[in-house]
């Protein structure tokens, strides 16, 4: 399955950036079955790393109960226009993808 980039949006207000992201990903729990009854193997994002101008500011670990095409919103302090925010995820099958956003 082609890995898709993280879609991101940012809103800057008084030095705090509100970051919103949508990560196209099937997020299979490993307990679901196809109509034919076969078990669909677990395939879910396990780790999300968020960087602000290169510095890691937030690291999330997710279990199997985060929804499909995960939505993730967080805030970054001491932010100003021109700063770069990067979100990178890693799933249990070793796939990874990322999104980059330059704050305006």
């Amino acid at each position, binding site marked *: 399955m082609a890995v898709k980039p993280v879609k991101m949006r940012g809103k800057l207000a008084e030095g705090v950036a509100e970051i919103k992201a949508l990560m196209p990903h099937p997020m299979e729990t490993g307990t679901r079955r196809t109509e034919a009854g076969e078990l669909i193997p677990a395939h879910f994002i*396990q780790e999300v790393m968020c960087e602000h101008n290169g510095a890691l500011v*937030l690291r999330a670990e997710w279990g199997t*109960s985060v929804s499909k095409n995960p939505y993730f919103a*967080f805030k970054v302090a001491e932010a100003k226009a021109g700063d770069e925010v990067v979100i990178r995820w890693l799933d249990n099958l070793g796939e990874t993808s990322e999104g980059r956003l330059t704050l305006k």
Partner: protein
Amino acid sequence: MNMNVSRRHVLRGLSLLIGVAALPRQLFARATGAFQAKEVDQVMQQLFGDLPVTLSDQVILKIPSIAENGAVVPVTVSSDVAGVEAIYIVIDANPNPLSATFELGATSPADVSTRVKMGQSSMVRGLVKTSDGVLMAQQEVKVTIGGCGG
């Protein structure tokens, strides 16, 4: 499971190289076991050991009381309390109650949102860990089957 745990260490090693001063070191690679736990108290034990967990209105848990759809339940956990190191989301009735952990940098505001899956109606907990303890908010969320057996 150990295959991807080692990958996680590799990635963490990488992130160390690219200047990760913002995150306190000892928070790393601790939650993995808690994700396998089947009971809430096991999760709490794994995450916090015997640190006290106290209900507090300083933690805001925003989640609907009746979920439109158990597959996609919007949830926000936030707090203005000082020195927040990490935020956790726990869904008691899920097969694995620990849903997500968020380790925050020193300057990162404690305000995270995502969408979670709920297999059935359940108590949902938002926990905030600070240097001097763990604060918690909780709310019962009902998950209903569609109207006409939908």
